[in-house]
């Protein structure tokens, strides 16, 4: 499935989802090859989701959740971060670069940051491949 190179963004709908919709209203679109998976809350992120994304050919996975303390469901964003860390350790053990999995805190008021993170990741991971 080598030709299925893509980036998967797993995003809390309350923060990242709002920021994306703001960008879309302004005419911005996700770059080709970026798949957006919206979660009801960072707390619903399962380690399995991340592993399956890599299995399905993701070159990189970006997890976006609210700032800690701003999560509507209390600890959702903390759990998301912990799960990302656990998978990063696992990736290191099996020899996959840890920077293929990123975690970031985001607020609904951060559409510009969202765009720049996604574009930077896209340049870093997908653009040079170009084959």
């Amino acid at each position, binding site marked *: 499935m080598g030709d299925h190179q893509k980036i998967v963004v797993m995003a809390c709908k*309350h923060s990242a989802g709002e920021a994306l919709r703001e960008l879309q209203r302004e005419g911005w679109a996700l770059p080709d090859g970026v*798949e957006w*998976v*919206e*979660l*009801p*809350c960072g*707390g*619903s*992120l*399962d380690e*399995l*989701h991340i592993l*399956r*994304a890599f*299995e*399905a050919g993701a070159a990189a996975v970006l997890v976006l959740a609210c700032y800690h*303390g*701003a*999560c*509507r*469901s*209390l*600890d*959702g964003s903390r*759990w998301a971060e912990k*799960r990302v860390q656990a998978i990063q350790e696992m990736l290191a053990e099996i020899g996959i670069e840890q920077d293929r999995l990123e975690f970031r805190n985001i*607020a*609904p008021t951060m559409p510009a940051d969202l765009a720049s993170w996604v574009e930077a990741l896209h340049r870093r991971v997908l653009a040079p491949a170009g084959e």
Partner: protein
Amino acid sequence: MSQATPVAKQVLVLGASSEAARAVKELLALGYKVLWVSGDELPSNGLDSPALAKYANCRLYALEGHVGRFVSHFLHQGQRLALSTSAIIVATGNERYFPAERYGLELSSLVWTTSQVKEQLKKPLPQSVLAFRDKRILLLLDWSGETSKELVSESFSLAGELCERCRSEVYFFYRDLTVDSPGWEQRTRELRDKGVVFCRYGEPEVTVGEAAVSISYLEGTVEGDLLVLPEAVRPRGDTAELAEILQVRLGEDGYFQELNIRKYRAGLSARKGIFFAGRCHMDCDASEAESDALQVVAAVDALLGQGALEPEEVIAYVDPSKCIRCLTCVRTCPHAAVQVVEYEDMDVVAARVDELACWGCGACASNCPVQAIEMVGQEMPAWVQGV
């Protein structure tokens, strides 16, 4: 599967505070049936209506059910009392005390609290007024700590009343008047016009003598006949117990903590259908507490106004045949929406999510060790299933 469940427009209001009274009044005006319950006496302020039932001196000892069909269990005059309501507004207020340790002073004939002055002013004439007539009164705010908004506001009123009604000479000592409430600047101006002297201090030196009190500060020393100190507020003693019964959270400061929501939504607790109004969850003065109560009533009406409730678009569903009753979901649900129950039709005991109480955050599903919980309504790409 998201079908509307009819619910009664019936609300429990807990507490005897003025914001509780405001909420009751507003709910009645909107056509709700209101059950007004307090652990203390209830104010007799003419709120009477066939749609209102009042119960004073009740202790809540258990809460069952969820939004739309809460059942609150009280002890009332030695009897058990069970009240069914669709929503609950907690408006229990706060508790006042005299922080003797913080001030390093005991109350005496020369040192009064703002509440003592207020009580005295409520007494019949002439003793109410004569107690302060032509006296010089030193009101000292923000001493060794910040005075709560509620007490600052009351101190303003007292200063005005003492000046006008009692012809007292009032010195109003302050450190930083947080003029963050609309109207305070104007109130300060009005009081100045009435003759109140405002003195800003850094580190005041307070002396209580045999017959007089004095405050020394940067600009000199002011002697007076009476030192008035505002009380402090703290969460009521029963707050923690109440939070446990209601399964809602307390903040680090010991007050009820509302749900984190970007667009401020009045008094939402983490639990659907339970709301906080006024001084049990925020530092505010009485009038702000009452406007908070109005916003909370608006939020309750937004929830129940249609007489029916619908689940969120995404909610959790437990497959009872997979559940191993480990209670992980019960413990992790931030919104107290899961319980272990008996499924009579299937003859099993397993976790069950209340579909109206569930916020759909998915914390239970990602924590369940045997993947017994599915997020119904959540669209996920096929590869998540390993396809």
